[in-house]
């Protein structure tokens, strides 16, 4: 069945798309939380929060679609992976609670030292670390028996999953920094440029480390990437990463405010494509393929109608919301 376009493959791409949209959209706003401690001034923090306040809720909705969509389209994978990732998932949810409520709460507190700033930064870091660890735990595979997860609740903890956790923290921080380059000006923007340099080098190191470590997890990953003729398809990925990196370095050097963010998104897209190449056609690596996990055709077709009509519509009005709040966010201007 591999190679032909069937329903399960279509749905694998839809779920992958939802998760990717989540990663890039919530990625930058989680990244802002990770960078928060580096911006101690209240005025800067207000601007940073305001740059995402109108859109953060929509960003997180993609996470609900990723989870809900997976339960609907690949219930077996959802049922196996969630208990396997138990601790990182709970940690992620708790992190998202703290940083999510901070958007409103930090304007409401009367205390001088704003503890919701700490909640925003800590929650963002925790959620990101947990997501990265979950990714690593999926890649290294989980213990499945029958239709159940059969491992313990700390199986996910390995050096590799810690590595992917840290890599994602660096990646989201870079997204956040380049978002600030795009949305702010003055000293705040200059600081964001400065941070972007360091974070870019860190991210390249992280991509390199994860790329080197992954083939050692399973022989299948090695074969997928390095055997002939696969290499014709896989080789362009690292080459494109190098190309995007050059463009990104140039845009940072020339201070072209709009480019770094979108080029960072391109880096994420390429890393994500690399993940897809490693995993396909497994949804639980080495155990369950997308066809084994797929829900019955009539469930997948029923939802496909909704996705085909509604996702373009959602992307449309989401784009409109971003457009309404476009441009640079300024502190204090227009105060009346």
């Amino acid at each position, binding site marked *: 069945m591999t190679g032909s376009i069937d329903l399960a493959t279509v749905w694998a791409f839809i779920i992958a798309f939802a998760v990717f949209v989540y990663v890039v959209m919530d990625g930058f706003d989680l990244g802002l939380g990770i960078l928060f401690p580096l911006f101690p001034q209240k*005025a800067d923090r207000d601007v940073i929060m305001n740059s995402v306040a*109108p859109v953060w809720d929509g960003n997180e909705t993609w996470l609900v*679609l990723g989870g809900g969509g997976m339960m*609907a389209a690949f219930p077996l994978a959802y049922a196996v992976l969630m208990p396997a990732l138990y601790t990182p998932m709970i940690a992620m949810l708790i992190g998202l609670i703290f940083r999510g409520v901070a958007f409103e709460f930090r304007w409401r507190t009367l205390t001088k030292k704003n503890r919701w700033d700490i909640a925003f930064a800590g929650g963002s870091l925790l959620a990101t670390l947990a997501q990265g660890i979950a990714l690593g735990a999926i890649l290294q595979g989980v213990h499945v028996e029958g239709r*159940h*997860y059969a491992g313990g609740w700390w199986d996910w903890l390995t050096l590799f999953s810690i590595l992917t956790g840290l890599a994602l923290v660096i990646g989201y921080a870079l997204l956040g920094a380049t978002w600030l380059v795009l949305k702010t000006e003055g000293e705040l923007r200059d600081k964001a440029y400065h941070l972007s340099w360091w974070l870019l080098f860190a991210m390249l190191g992280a991509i390199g480390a994860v790329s080197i470590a992954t083939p050692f997890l399973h022989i299948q990953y090695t074969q997928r990437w390095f055997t002939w003729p696969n290499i014709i398809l896989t080789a362009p990925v690292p080459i494109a990463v190098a190309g995007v990196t050059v463009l990104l370095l140039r845009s940072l050097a020339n201070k072209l405010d709009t480019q770094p963010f979108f080029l960072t998104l391109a880096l994420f897209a390429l890393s994500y494509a690399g993940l897809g190449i490693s995993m396909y056609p497994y949804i639980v690596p080495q155990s369950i393929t997308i066809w084994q996990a797929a829900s019955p055709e009539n469930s997948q077709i029923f939802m496909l109608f909704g996705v085909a009509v509604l996702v373009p519509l959602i992307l449309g009005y989401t784009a409109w919301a971003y457009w*309404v709040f476009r441009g640079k966010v300024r502190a204090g*201007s*227009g105060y*009346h």
Partner: protein
Amino acid sequence: MFESWDAVVLARAQFAFTMSFHIVFPAFSIGLASYLAVLEALWLWTGREVFINLFNYWLKIFAVAFGMGVVSGIVMSYQFGTNWSAFSDKTGPVLGPLMAYEVLTAFFLEAGFLGVMLFGLERVGHRLHFIATLMVATGTLISAFWILSANSWMQTPTGYAVNADGQFVAADWLKVIFNPSFPYRLVHMVLAAYLTTALVVGAVGAFHLLRDRNQAGARVMFSMAMWMATLVAPIQILAGDQHGLNTLEHQPTKIMAMEGHFESHKNGAPLILFGLPDQAAGKVKYAVEIPKLGSLILKHSPDAPLAGLDTVPRENWPPVPITFWSFRIMVGMGFLMMGLGLFSLWNRWRGTLYESRLLHLFAMAMGPAGFIAVLAGWITTETGRQPFTVYGLLRTVESASPLAAPAVGSSLIAFVIVYFAVFSAGVIYILRMMATPPHHGEQGPSSDVPARAAGITPAAGVAAGGSAS
């Protein structure tokens, strides 16, 4: 810790705890979103300043409540997988699509337009802003549609088949979505959300009228809220009665537990008003009952026979005391709401709606009544369908994840600590906002700090200055 505990009991406690916290926010925001749409429509239509003041006043409260609803809701959507993975595997093909549709048709709609609703009045103009408010309000109702359909299917499953892997699959999607208890549950819950909001708005209005009976905003919101209580509370009691009859038809065991009917009655069952149900002994101690009234309400005939729990194997009994008592709390709240509505109508007729201290004190005391009734109602319906997750088909013990008790217990403790820390702060912020009356020139959420009122582009900044004057 927790080694000697039962993982399923802990998972149930976690679901009950996180769900009880979560439901409070949507119950409030469904009603409040509609109320905000009404206020903005009245402002656009009449141009009266009091309506935009009230709109901005409640919008700030909405923003805080909605945020708490979102983050507590994400927990719910992942909890199916973390704690109830066997359930997810078996029901995913049927319930997954309903929840996916909820995300696609409701959550995105709310989230997409929320930013414009909260911060965009000066940026997009009145008309587009009103559309954004309508979209958010519509989104909350669509969300109620799908999630209540999913819940109702678990209570009264129809339109399904079972495949070789033991999964429920859809045989007829329309029968899945419009399953027998869904229309009743949807009406009952949406009305409950409207009443909950009306009681909160009424309590805030009453609080400010007690201090200053000429407070313009307080007068308008109190009057609107009391109209809602007067009109909707009796309808809700009627809807609840119909929902009960539907439950009798499809989940008779739940009704037996709600009524405390351990024994069958051949010649008309009594209505047990109060008493102490004893699950082990299988009888209600110290029962205060009215003969024949139970049959009269449920069968519309005083002598109609009514089966009791003695016709049901014990392993299929729901926990009777909880179901029995939560049901009475809900019904009691419902009649108090109707009482408040009638008392306000009487005062309105006498011209003392804004003067009667007794009415205002009553309305203030009833502020949390909607939340209590919603919680009690959900406890009734969810406890009453035990010991099943999919009624009669899938047992709760067969639905849980293959996790050890320490994992579930630890996450339960984490959620308890985090929820109390975070949501009690949120409730304090909301109460603090409610404690100040809506005033002349009330600003929306975008004005709390200078940076938020700031136009992102100079042109928008000018527009903001223009329309704010």
